[in-house]
C-alpha cells in the first residue's frame, strides 16, 4: 500500500512542481498515474522511491515513511525507472545476482526466480552477455526482472511498457494483474491511455503538479457526464 500525504515539491522557489498531493494506492489495486509531459509524474515517482527529497508532507509504503524510515520503506517496493540503460558493462546474470544480493533474495530462491522471470521475458539465453549488447526492449526486460526478483509487495513502474514487444507487454500486464490479484499493489505511470483504460482499477491524473482526478474509468465518465474514450476525457481534464 502506498499513501501519499500532503506532498509538495518545488525546484524553483515559489513554483510548486507537485502541489499538496494526496493519494492512497490500496492493496490489490493496479493504479495508473497519468498526466501530460512536465505535469509532475516523474517528480512524484521519484519522491515515492526516495530519489527526491520531499519538501512538505510524507509518503508511506506499507506504513513505513520514505522520509524517516527510508531503508525499510525501500525494501517494500521494486522500482523500474524510465530509462533502462543501466549497468551496461555488466552481464545480464551479473546484474540480476547483484540485485538479488541487494534485496537479500535467498540462495534457494534466486535461481528459480531468475529462470522464471527471464524465461517469461525471453531473455534467459542472453544472460551471459553484457547488457550493452541488448536492444532497448531487452534492457527494459532485464531491469523489470531485477525489480521483481525479490518479489516486492509494491511495484512502482515508470513507463514500463516502453520498448517492450507485444508478447512481453502482454506478459507484463498479466503479471501486474496476478500481482494485484494476490492482494499486492501496482503503481505505474504511462502515456498509453489504452493500457491504463484496460488494465487499471483506478487512475490518477496529474496536471501542473496537482492531482485533478482520481478514480475508476466509470467514475470519470460519470463525473464528466460523457460517454467517450479515456483519451478524450484525458485531454479535456488536462487542457482545462
Amino acid at each position, binding site marked *: 500500500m502506498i499513501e501519499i500525504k500532503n506532498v509538495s515539491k518545488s525546484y524553483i522557489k515559489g513554483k510548486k512542481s507537485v502541489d499538496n498531493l494526496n493519494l492512497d494506492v490500496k492493496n490489490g489495486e493496479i493504479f495508473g498515474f497519468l498526466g501530460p509531459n512536465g505535469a509532475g509524474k516523474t517528480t512524484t515517482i521519484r519522491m515515492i522511491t526516495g530519489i527526491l527529497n520531499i519538501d512538505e508532507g510524507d509518503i508511506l509504503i506499507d506504513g513505513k515513511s520514505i522520509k524517516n524510515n527510508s531503508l525499510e520503506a525501500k525494501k517494500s517496493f521494486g522500482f523500474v*525507472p524510465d530509462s533502462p540503460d543501466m549497468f551496461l558493462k*555488466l552481464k545480464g546474470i551479473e546484474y540480476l*545476482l547483484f540485485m538479488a544480493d541487494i534485496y537479500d533474495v535467498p540462495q534457494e530462491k534466486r535461481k528459480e526466480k531468475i529462470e522464471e522471470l527471464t524465461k517469461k521475458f525471453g531473455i534467459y539465453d542472453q544472460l*551471459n*552477455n553484457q547488457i550493452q549488447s541488448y536492444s532497448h526492449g531487452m534492457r527494459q526486460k532485464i531491469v523489470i526482472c531485477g525489480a521483481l526478483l525479490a518479489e516486492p509487495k509494491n511495484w512502482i513502474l515508470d513507463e514500463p511498457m516502453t520498448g517492450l514487444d507485444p508478447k512481453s507487454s502482454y506478459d507484463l500486464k498479466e503479471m501486474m494483474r496476478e500481482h494485484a490479484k494476490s492482494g499486492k499493489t501496482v503503481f505505474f505511470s504511462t502515456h498509453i491511455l489504452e493500457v491504463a483504460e484496460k488494465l487499471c482499477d483506478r487512475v490518477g491524473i496529474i496536471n501542473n503538479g496537482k492531482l485533478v482526478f482520481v478514480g475508476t474509468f466509470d467514475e470519470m465518465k460519470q463525473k464528466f457526464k460523457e460517454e467517450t474514450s479515456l483519451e478524450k476525457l484525458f485531454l479535456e481534464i488536462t487542457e482545462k
Partner: protein
Amino acid sequence: MDKVIKLTKIFLKNSFSNMDARMGISSKSKSKILIYGILFLYFAGLIIFLSYNLLDGLISIHQETIFVGMILFMIFGLAIFQTLFSSINILYFTKDNEYILPLPLKPYQIILARTGVMLIIEYVIIFLLGLIPLVMYGVLTNAGILYYITMICSVILLPILPILLISIIVMIIMSFARFTKNRNRFQLIASILLIGIVIAISVATSGTRDNLTNEEMAQAVVQANGMIEIMKGYVPTVDYMVEALTTNSLFIVVINIFKTFIITAVGLVLYLIISQKLYFKGLIGNLFGSSTTTSNKKINQEKYQNSKLYKSYIGKEFKTLARNPVFLLQCLLPAVLIPILMVFVVYSSLNGDGGLAESTIKMLGNTPTNSFLIIGIILGIIQFFTMFIYISITAISREGSNAIFMKYIPVSLYRQYIYKIIPNIIMNIVTIIISLGIAEYILHLPVLTLVILFVIATIMGILQSILMIIVDLKRPKLNWDSEYAVAKQNMNLVFPVLLSMINIVIIALMVYLFKNINVYLGLAMLGCLFIIATFVANKYLYNNQNELANKIS
C-alpha cells in the same frame, strides 16, 4: 562553415556543459572562480619561475634562441600526446555520434567540428604551457610587437598539423573496427595501443633528455641545439616559426609564417580527403558492430550463490571500471603504470650517470635526521603517484544518469559511498606497495620504516578517497556524452592534484619541524595527524550522507 562553427560549439558545450554551469557568474560562482584563479596562478607562477631560470641561464651564454625552439617543439609534442589520448574518444566514443549521423550534415562538416574540439582543448593547454614561456622570452629579450604577433601565429598554427596526423593514425586503426567481432575489446586494444605509443615515445625521449642534464651547460646547449637541428628536418613548420620568432626582419617573418600557413593548409586539405574515406567506415563499425561476442554458454550453478553485499557491490564497481576502456585507462591502470614508468625512466637515467644520484640518496639516508627527510620524500612521491588515481573523484559522475539507482535501493548511502571508494583505496595500496618495493630496492630501508611508511601512506590514501568522493558528490558531472568527459574533461580532477600538493606541503612542514626529534616519534605524529583528518572526513561523510546526495536526482 557556419554549420561547422555551430556544430563545434554544440560538441564543446556537450562536453563541458556542467563545467560551464559551474564556471558561470551566477550561483555561488565567486568562490569557484577564486579556486580556479588560485590554481591558474599557481601553475602560471610555476611555469614563469621555471622559464625564467632556464632563460636566465641561456641569456648568460647568449643562447636564448634555443629556448624558442624548445618551446615550439614542446607545443608540437604536447599536441601529439594530447591528441593521442583524446582523439579516439572525441572521434569515436562520444554518445552524440548516433544523433549526429542522421542529421543533414556533410561528412567534412562533422570531421572539421570534431577536429575543432580537439584543437580548442589543445589551445587551452598551450595557453598555459606554451604561451606563457614565449611571453617570458619576449619580456626578457625586450622583443618588439612583431615578435608577439609572430608568437600568436605560432601558437595558433603549430598544433594543427600534429592533431591532423594523429587523428589520421587513429582513423586507420579504428577503420578495422568494422571487421572485429567484439567492438568493446577492440576499443580497449586500440586505446592501449595508443597509450603504448605514448609510453614508448616518453621512455625513449626521457632517456635522452635525462642523460643531458648532468652535462656542462655549454655542452648541454650544444646537444640541445643539435637535437633541435635534427628534429627541424622532420618538422619543417617548427623550423619556420623558430626562424620567424628569432629574427627582426619583417620579410623573413612574413615568408616563414606564409610557408607554415601553406603547409598547414595543404595538411588540412589532405586530412579532409583521407578522413572522409576513413572516418565514417570506422565510426559506423564502432557504433553498430557487435558490442560483445554473444555467448550462449549455460550459466554455472555456482553463479547463483549468495554473495555478501559488500563483495557484490565492490565487485560491480571493479567490473564497471575494468570493462570500460576509458575508465580502465584513466582510473585503474595509472595506479600500476605511473609509479613503474616514472621510476623506470628516472632510475635508468640516473644510473646512466654512474649511479651518482643513487649514492647521493644513500648518503642522505645515513643520519637519522636525513632518514626522516628520505621518508618525507618517499611519502611525497607516493602522494604524487596516487593523485592520478581517479576512481574516487569520479565515483558518482561515472554512473551518469544511473546514479539515481543509489537512492532507491535499500542500502544506506554511506555504505554505498564506502563501497565506491574501496577500489580507490585498493589501487592506492597497489601504488604504495610498488613504490615502497622500488624504494626498498634502491635504499634498503629497515622493515619497521617500510611498515610505518605503508601505514601512513595507506591512511593518506583513505583520506584522499573520502575527500574526493565528497568533492564528486558536491559537484557531480552526471550528464556526459562520453566516458572521456568524466575521466578527462572534468574540472573536479584538479582536486586530487590540489590535495596532493597540500599533503606534500604538510609532509615537508612536518619533516622540517620534527627534524630534531626521533624519526619514529615524528612519523607517529604525522600518522596521527592524518588519522584525525581521516576520522573527521569520514564523520562528515556519515553525518551528511543524505544531503550530499541532493545533486543526484
